[in-house]
């Protein structure tokens, strides 16, 4: 075990995958020589050569298409989109092609691809460096969406994603690349060095896709979330004194309905939370499914915490980002309902 932050853990996953399988390649804007604007691909070009880790032209659709062609040929490309906010030019290739090629060819061509992309807010990124566009992809049959919340999971989930035969959109919460974030913008910077999930094995291991984790056991209310908000939810549970059970979803599609329903049937109350705008967000899907599966166990309406239905603002970031107070308010409101 070594102490790693999330960037180092992701870099280690790519290193292990490339070492183990010559079909694994990685590329993206600035991903080659420079090692990526967030350093996730640092050192890989030097270690594995120009044709295994390389720079791509600034054309997200072309980056996705290149991965599609390579994957159909039998390689396992890991493509990087520099910010999730810039994945939209690639939407046609991802939604119309990557997600459907196995289906439309009846399995004659497959798409073992990982599209990695830094994701989420909390970094003063403004409108185009803060987005959480996961719901655009959870709506698409044929692709899976994975979002880790710590270095250990980041490496294990990325290795599992690279080894998966299905296309995966792998969103990396950039706010927690260097340390966990509890939602308090004015709090001291935290480091992964002091966090249990900052202990990462150097070699190969995987974290199972489609499997959620109960990261805090509790009896009063279930909080289902993912990414940065896992840490906000944990901090809110401690601060509020409400014995919340916090579930880190990790894989959004397919999500782990069993772990969720088991918890909600125990607590009888549920909060679903995401950073993305509220309307049609992934939290809406969770709320609908939990309502369907746990209706007779629910003692209060399911509460949804989300970003506002506005573009992500710059100056008023902390009025937008769902911080601790919103979680605490929701926990109180849900548990006070008779």
């Amino acid at each position: 075990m070594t102490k790693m932050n999330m960037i180092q853990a992701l870099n280690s996953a790519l290193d292990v995958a490339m070492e183990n399988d010559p079909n694994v390649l990685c590329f993206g804007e600035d991903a080659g020589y420079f090692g990526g604007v967030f350093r996730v691909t640092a050192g890989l070009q030097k270690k594995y050569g120009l044709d295994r880790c390389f720079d791509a032209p600034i054309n997200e659709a072309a980056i996705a298409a290149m991965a599609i062609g390579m994957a159909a040929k039998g390689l396992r490309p890991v493509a990087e989109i520099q910010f999730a906010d810039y994945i939209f030019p690639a939407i046609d290739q991802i939604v119309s092609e990557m997600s459907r090629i196995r289906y439309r060819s009846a399995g004659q061509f497959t798409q073992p691809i990982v599209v990695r992309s830094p994701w989420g807010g909390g970094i003063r990124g403004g409108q185009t460096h803060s987005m959480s566009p996961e719901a655009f992809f959870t709506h698409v049959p044929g692709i899976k969406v994975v979002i880790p919340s710590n270095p250990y999971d980041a490496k294990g989930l990325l290795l599992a994603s690279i080894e998966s035969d299905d296309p995966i959109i792998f969103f990396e919460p950039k706010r927690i690349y260097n340390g966990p974030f509890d939602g308090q913008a004015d709090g001291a910077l935290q480091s992964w060095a002091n966090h249990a999930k900052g202990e990462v094995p150097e070699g190969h291991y995987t974290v199972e896709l489609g499997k959620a984790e109960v990261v805090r056991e509790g009896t009063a209310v279930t909080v289902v979330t993912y990414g940065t908000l896992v840490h906000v939810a944990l901090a809110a549970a401690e601060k509020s004194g409400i014995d919340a059970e916090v579930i880190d979803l990790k894989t959004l599609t397919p999500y782990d309905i069993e772990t969720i329903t088991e918890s909600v049937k125990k607590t009888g109350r549920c909060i679903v939370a995401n950073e993305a705008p509220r309307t049609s967000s992934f939290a809406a899907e969770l709320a609908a499914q939990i309502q369907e599966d746990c209706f007779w166990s629910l003692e209060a309406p399911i509460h949804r915490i989300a970003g506002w239905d506005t573009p992500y603002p710059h100056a008023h970031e902390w009025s937008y980002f769902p911080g601790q107070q919103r979680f605490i308010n929701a926990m109180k409101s849900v548990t006070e309902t008779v």
Partner: protein
Amino acid sequence: MATSQPRYRVPAPKFRPGDEPDFSDLKLQPAGEAKRPGIDCSWKDTVDHATGLVGALDHNHQAVGEWNPELDPDTLREGLRHMVLTRVYDERMQKLQRQGKMSFYMKSTGEEAVSVAAAMALRDSDMVFPSYRQQGILFARGRDIVDMMCHCISNSRDNLKGRQLPVHYTWAEGNFFSISGNLGTQFPQAVGWAMGARYKNEDQVTASWIGDGTTAEGDFHGALTLASTYRAPVIFNVVNNQWAISTFQGIAQGDAPSLAVKGLGYGLPSIRVDGNDFLAVYAATQWAAERARAGHGATLLELYTYRAAAHSTSDDPSGYRPKEEATKWPLGDPIERLKNHLIGLEEWDEQRHEAMESELNDLVVKSYKEAESYGTLHDGPLSPVPSIFEDVTAEPDWRLIRQRQDLGI
């Protein structure tokens, strides 16, 4: 109601329904005139080719110039046969669509050389990323006609399990990529595949086809950028058949000054080819494939042709162009031209041609009878209903298992 002069130019075709089409002012370079550059040439050596027209069959149907691939008569007859089969198949399938036997069809009438000659000039191991109008490749590569028809009528033997619209063929075994309805997406994908082939140290070349209209899509730009940047072994075929449904090629700025010229800006050797000249298409493809295989990178070929039939069975071209325009097209018909060439060589005659047409017609009729024995879209049998939940991902997850149960199966 238009009440004033337009405030910006909206290009319009020269002829609309009711007009007398006349292409006499279309100045096309005569066959045999264009030089054949070395396969290691640069984009600069093809500047004239990008605005000219590479041809090998002259007005007397004789093979002339440096782009004559000097094919033996057997190969020429084989090419003719594949083109005639493509046309006979198209005619039959169109009729069957009209009879309600399938939901949709798209002919490639007039463009048979673009797919057949190219496929014959490539190796069968080369990968193709076609659009929906290169069915000639399948015939040239020997795909079972019954299988093609089973796909089009979505029956129990459809290799795509009824998931795709007719003519969206996939044939991995024949190195024929899955056709998508989304235009142009295959162009940059072909580059990724070609890079994969290079990565695996294979000498496989990839070829992709789009139409003139699709050059306006961003993926055209992305593909050319990628191919040029990574020097990928790709052949980009732009089939300029003058029409994108109802819009003439000027709406995609095909006259500025040609579509081939666009390749030069990416540093790719780019050549405009007479798309109705079997020999020229063959020679240009062979040249581009040699270039790619030797490591010199991608080539852009603009195949200058004319979409003689409707865009699809859902289209009526008499609403936007003169009915007789195809017959006035100066580059003629690819089948007639190759046939006349062979007759000129005394390697073919009208009787043999008629006999071949009749034989292929019988083959297509017989094949359809067999295809129908595996079911039709309307009367079944189709692929089993639960198959709609298969192949979404490698393994179905709980959502699909539940949804399948919701459907009662």
